């Protein structure tokens, strides 16, 4: 239960940060971290295939594409200073989340009671490294392509 709660809080926190950050690079990274949290939740809920795809597509592909897109924005727009007012809203969102959890937390706990824990299901490692290992190779290639694209666009200034 505590694991689910921790992951759920991380998911909400990083999803909120993705919306709140003015710096788009940080927003894209926050979204990627939120996807990783969702991946872990899916793994914990005995949905390793869905988790693997979430990790591949959202945490991997989409983050790289966002970062690539952000890299094409002018530097002065990229490194905007963060205003405190936006972050002041965060506690209110968490308050709303807490109130929701207060009312629905019991039902959530009952629903989770029957769920297996991480140790009881098909090994994540087996799935990632044995069954879908080539997807990981592809993921690495995508990240490399994204990094090279960024280098190509930023490198122009040094020609």
């Amino acid at each position, binding site marked *: 239960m505590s694991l689910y709660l921790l992951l759920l809080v991380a998911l909400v926190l990083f999803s909120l940060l993705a919306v709140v950050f003015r710096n788009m690079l940080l927003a894209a990274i926050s979204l990627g971290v939120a996807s990783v949290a969702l991946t872990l939740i899916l793994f914990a809920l005995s949905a390793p295939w869905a988790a693997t795809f979430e990790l591949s597509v959202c945490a991997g592909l989409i983050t790289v594409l966002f970062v*690539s897109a952000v890299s094409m924005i002018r530097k002065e727009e990229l490194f905007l200073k963060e205003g405190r007012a936006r972050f002041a809203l965060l506690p209110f969102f968490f308050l709303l989340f807490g109130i929701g959890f207060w009312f629905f937390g019991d039902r959530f706990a009952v629903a989770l009671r029957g769920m297996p824990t991480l140790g009881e299901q098909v090994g994540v490692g087996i799935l990632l490294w044995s069954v879908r290992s080539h997807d990981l190779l592809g993921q*690495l290639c995508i990240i490399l392509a994204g990094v*090279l694209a960024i280098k190509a*666009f930023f490198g*122009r200034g040094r020609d």
Partner: protein
Amino acid sequence: MNQGLVPFILLPALAAVIAPFLWRKSRPAVESLSALVLGLGLIAALIGIPLAGQLGAEFRAARGSFPMPPFRGDEFSTLMLVTIFLISLASVFYSIFSVPGGEKRASYYSLILICTAGMAGVVTTGDFFTMYVFLEVVAVSSFALIAFSGDSEGIEGALKYLFLSAPASFLILLGVALLFLNTGGTSFSHLFQTAAGGGGSKAGILAALGLFACGFMVKAGLVPFHGWVPDAYQSSPAPISALLSGIVTKVAGVYALVRMSMFLHAAPGYASVTRALMFFGALSIVVGALAAMVQRDFKRLLAFSSISQVGYIVLSAGLGTPMALLGATFHLFNHATFKATLFLNGAAVERATGTRDMTQLGGLGSRMPWTTGTSVVAFLSTAGIPPLSGFWSKLIIIVALWVGGAKGYAIIALLASILTLGYFLILQRRIFFGKVVSFTEGAEEVAAGMLLPVVVLAALMVIIGLYFPFICQLLLDPAVKALL
């Protein structure tokens, strides 16, 4: 799991990592490394053709088992690898002598290498999700390469590519999800077993196949999803246009459509999808050829011609008979060679004259004899003139359509072939023959290094055409048998 093909992905990917570090120390070393890795890949793929027979046998034996290894290779994959490494090598070799210098060239070679690795991943996988992942590798690197020039034209072409490619990826991903829901897996074998065995929800599988078909048609640049093709080809650096037209669209779209078509022919009740493929193939042939007739910019003409020629491959693959598959496979290889030649020669003409407008050109034949000679060979091969390689593939496609009962489509393909000859004769006359005009007065033949790739590709068109029975026996028959 056949790990034997993983080096085709790993080697270019590793070279792509090393290149930017090596660039600061020695630029020629990066160029040599890129050419060496792609050359080795080409040799390995050529050597691998006989070995692929064994791999193909393993694949066919495993087709009935479950689960399917995600990576495998058969003769068709090997033929695709040969084409990928050949065109990538030609593109890199041409780039060494043509793309302007600067820091960004380190990323440039790395992007070509990673794009090659992505394409190798697409053609060696037996799983739709893995294919999707590698398609994204190709999409990200292609996007960066199209926009590489950094001018507004390049950015516009790249954005058009991105705006059409991203929804296509989404459709393919949605298709993978539906396939997983209906067959319990994402591999080719799951689709094959479920579709042939009549299992799963037919409507669900049909929806998944429909989504795949739409996604891959966008990536292949078929009409009506061809909007990105002319701008992307026109705005990217010449070697990248050759790479995109020669092989990227084939791998990202056409290859998957050919594979998918084979599964559809093996399973009863999915003929509607193959009929749709044939229709869109024929539509692309006609629209591409008609649009090419009215172009003034020769790069755009070549782009529309590519749309038309890809239509031939998809039309033939949609029919799915052994002869039609032979024609589709052969035309896929041929189109890669002659379109890469034409785009590279187009760049040479632009470099020598400073314009791509055909109305401002003329008489280049005497100024640029090698460029003219190789272009004429490529034109004639595209139009299907004997004894060049393009003649055989078009002949096989038209005969297969006629024999297979698609006589209407055979007539369309034949008439469009005459149109192809027409617009290439116009292009040839305007650019290479006639009187020398002001733009072409000072034109000189390009460097020998830039000519080498096009001379080799043109020689291949002649040799393959002359030795067609031998090539057919060595390369094409095994590839087609692997598909059936």
